[in-house]
């Protein structure tokens, strides 16, 4: 674009110079004048096309709303006005001046004077001509009587008298009869043209002023010479006289000036057109160059703004990496620099915010992780008591899928009605502090602790709950051992004196009594002693349960231990089937306590088998693979009466028994020992098939 402009302007300038040179009268360019005009016009058109092209481009940019195009347009308009107004002014004044000054060259007086000069010359010539005609007439009159050979002589005399240059006597056909000349050298005088002869014959006179070559003029007069007799044909007399050289030259010079003046006068329109054309071309070239230049300049001025706009848009898109190039050292450059530093600060601020956000995310993730791995269940409600958050343990403890309840209020829950009721009740109280409730879900006890969240964080409630069934069981066991210990102590103390007193009564009174009295005494004391002993045993058992010492754990083979115990139960009417898995790993256990466990369990089975036809007991061991290295499982099952459904949940509690005799502590002790071995015990009734019932006790012991 720039180069096109520069080339066009330079070319235009050269052509204009040539055109101006050609307008002045330089012969070198004169013949190429139309070509020069056309070239200049072509350059102007090219520049106009350039301007139009630029305008079209600008208009397209305006329509596409390219940033900076409006500014470019305004600057362009301003530049254009600055260029056009003075140009147009100078042009108008010049054209006016030109027209006026060219017109002023031509003056009516000059015109008249020149015309008068020419007329004067012509009048002088006419006068000379008419003088010549008069001379010719008198000569013709004189010659009319002269015939034959006298003609030449008379003609010479008459020519001499009249003082003309040449005289010629001709036949009507144009043949020379005789001639006379002032200078003898010119033997052949200038012959008249045929037209002249014809005219002389028909009009009786021919007069002409004939220009001779480049200068000099000849006056020619032809008149007929009338004959006296009718028989003779009319002769023609021609006399010629050259115009005096000084008169000829002067009138010629007047004529040439007159011609030149007339030419100028005629061509003044053309002349004016030349100058106006040159001026117009100059104006157009200058104007279009100026506008095209203005376009480039305004483009250059608005360029940094477009760069800035691009940067701004990039920032708006979130791209802070773009840096506008600082191209100038003016205010725009400063602005660009400020923009760059602003972008930099924005970038830093954003990266800081991102870092903060990331830290928050990490903290949140940590919190969520914490919640998920918390053994207690957590429910979070918002201020409208809608469930917003749960953790994994909550579902496990409540044994429900809580995900479905997210986003609902407890009032609309279809399951977990106890929990929902409790929550609704607590929420309706609008308590600010911490509340705690304990509810039972079937056989499990759950404690709920709720607290309102501070209103600054949006309000709401958080409810933490846990399954405390195990805890309660442990508390109950501890309470029982305490009771047993104290009871045993309190009961056992008076037993010895009672027994001793009964034996003393026996010893003192046996000899004094006889007969039935002695028998009664003996029986009574026996009863007292026996009952005291029984009570002592019972209390011992009880104390045993209460004070079971901590097990002394050592590695032992469970199969060997079972074999020892089972040997004691080889009775004829009882079938004990032992299925031991060989190669079992050793378990950690207290040999005596485990032996007691097996004893108690076998004893229970024996009791349950009383009165059962074909009783049998199955004892089996097996290895169960598990997460912590696996476990060894011991199972004892029988085909006895089984446990009543009513107490099967509570069989491990003390004094829960179905037997008529016994303390009801057997299974409680078993449970306690297994617990202290970190094992697990379950009791279940075997499924009833074919009238055969029974119970299965399964004990899992961990490996060391």
């Amino acid at each position, binding site marked *: 674009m720039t180069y096109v402009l520069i080339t066009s302007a330079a070319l235009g300038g050269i052509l204009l110079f040539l055109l101006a040179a050609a307008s002045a009268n330089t012969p070198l360019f004169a013949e190429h004048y*139309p070509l020069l005009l056309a070239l200049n016009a072509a350059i102007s058109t090219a520049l106009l096309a350039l301007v139009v092209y630029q305008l079209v481009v600008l208009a397209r940019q305006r329509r596409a709303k390219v940033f900076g195009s409006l500014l470019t347009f305004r600057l362009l308009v301003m530049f254009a006005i600055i260029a056009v107004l003075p140009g147009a002014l100078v042009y108008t004044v010049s054209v006016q001046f030109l027209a006026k000054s060219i017109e002023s060259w031509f003056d009516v007086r000059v015109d008249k004077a020149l015309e008068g000069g020419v007329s004067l010359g*012509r009048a002088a010539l006419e006068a000379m001509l008419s003088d010549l005609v008069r001379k010719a007439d008198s000569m013709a009159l004189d010659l009319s009587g002269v015939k034959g050979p006298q003609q030449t002589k008379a003609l010479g005399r008459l020519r001499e008298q009249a003082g003309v240059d040449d005289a010629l006597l001709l036949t009507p056909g144009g043949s020379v009869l005789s001639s006379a000349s002032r200078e003898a050298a010119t033997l052949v005088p200038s012959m008249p043209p045929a037209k002249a002869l014809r005219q002389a014959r028909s009009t009786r006179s021919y007069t002409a002023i004939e220009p001779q070559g480049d200068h000099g003029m000849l006056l020619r007069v032809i008149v007929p010479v009338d004959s006296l007799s009718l028989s003779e044909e009319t002769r023609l007399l021609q006399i010629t006289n050259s115009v005096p050289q000084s008169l000829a030259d002067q009138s010629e010079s007047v004529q040439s000036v007159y011609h030149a003046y007339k*030419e100028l006068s005629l061509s003044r329109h053309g002349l004016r057109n030349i100058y106006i054309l040159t001026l117009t071309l100059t104006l157009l070239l200058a104007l279009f160059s100026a506008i095209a230049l203005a376009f480039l300049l305004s483009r250059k001025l608005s360029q940094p703004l477009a760069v800035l706009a691009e940067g701004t848009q990039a920032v708006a898109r979130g791209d802070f990496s773009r840096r506008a190039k600082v191209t100038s050292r003016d205010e725009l450059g400063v602005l660009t620099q400020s923009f760059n530093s602003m972008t930099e600060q924005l970038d830093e601020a954003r990266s800081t915010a991102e870092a903060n956000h990331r830290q928050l995310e990490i903290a949140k993730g940590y919190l969520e992780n914490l919640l998920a791995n918390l053994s207690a269940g957590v429910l979070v409600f918002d201020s409208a008591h809608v469930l917003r958050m749960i953790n994994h343990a909550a579902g496990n403890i409540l044994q429900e899928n809580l995900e479905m309840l997210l986003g609902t209020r407890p009032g609309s829950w279809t399951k977990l009605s106890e929990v929902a009721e409790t929550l609704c009740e607590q929420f309706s109280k609008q308590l600010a502090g911490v509340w705690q409730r304990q509810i039972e879900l079937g056989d499990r006890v759950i404690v709920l602790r709720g607290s309102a969240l501070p209103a600054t964080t949006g309000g709401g409630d958080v409810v933490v709950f846990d399954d405390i069934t195990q805890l309660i069981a442990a508390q109950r066991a501890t309470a029982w051992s305490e009771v047993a210990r104290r009871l045993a102590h309190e009961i056992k103390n008076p037993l010895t004196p009672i027994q001793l007193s009964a034996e003393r009564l026996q010893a003192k009174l046996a000899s004094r009594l006889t007969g039935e009295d002695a028998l009664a005494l003996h029986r009574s004391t026996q009863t007292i002693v026996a009952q005291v002993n029984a009570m002592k045993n019972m209390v011992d058992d009880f104390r045993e349960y209460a004070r079971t010492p901590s097990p002394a754990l050592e590695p032992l083979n469970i199969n060997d231990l079972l074999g020892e115990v089972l040997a004691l139960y080889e009775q004829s009417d009882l079938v004990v089937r032992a299925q031991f898995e060989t190669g079992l790993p050793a378990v950690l256990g207290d040999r005596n306590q485990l032996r007691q466990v097996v004893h108690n369990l076998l004893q229970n089975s024996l009791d349950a088998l009383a009165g059962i036809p074909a009783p049998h007991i199955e004892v089996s061991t097996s290895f169960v693979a598990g997460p912590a290295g696996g476990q060894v499982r011991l199972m004892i099952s029988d085909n006895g009466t089984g446990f009543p459904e009513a107490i099967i949940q509570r069989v491990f509690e003390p004094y829960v028994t179905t037997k008529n005799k016994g303390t009801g502590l057997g299974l409680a002790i078993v449970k306690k020992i297994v617990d202290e071995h970190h094992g697990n015990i379950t009791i279940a009734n075997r499924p009833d098939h074919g009238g055969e019932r029974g119970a299965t006790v399964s004990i899992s012991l961990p490996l060391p």
Partner: protein
Amino acid sequence: MLRRSLLLLTFVAIVVISGDLIATVIKANNVSVEQSENALVVEGDFRFELSPRLEEALNHGVPLYFTVEFELLRPRWYWFDEKVASETRTLRLAYHTLSRQYRVSRGALYQNFPTLEEALRTLGTVRGWIVVEGDRLSPEEGYVAMLRLRLDTAQLPKPFQVSALTSSEWVLASDWVRVPFRSKASGSAIP
């Protein structure tokens, strides 16, 4: 809008220029080409009148230059016609105000006429113009001779040239008169 007006402007300009170029007021009659023994002779009559503007200029002493142009072409079916020869003859027409005579001159020769009609008739009459020497023509071959007369505006004073660029009153030219002919057999063949 701008584009449309530009188009219109171009169209108008074309119409005006072409209208100017069409102006032809010279009529050519009796154009003939004679091949004599050793030369090609052209004859013809051009009849025309001067436009009022031209006549005014002439009567105010502006000399007018006329050019008679001759071109000899040999048609070629496979390419542009070959230009065998071209000749021009320049005639000057001027008015002598003092004697009221029109002068037609060619080189040093001149002739005076009392009326413009006579001067123009003489100017437009071409007689015995030997344009090509005979031996430059190949025998027995087809040629086209072309002749025209036109006012040489390039020899006008410059202001008139500018006027001539834009005004049809200053344009005076005949069309090319085409005379096809066949050259005679070579001179030696003629007894």
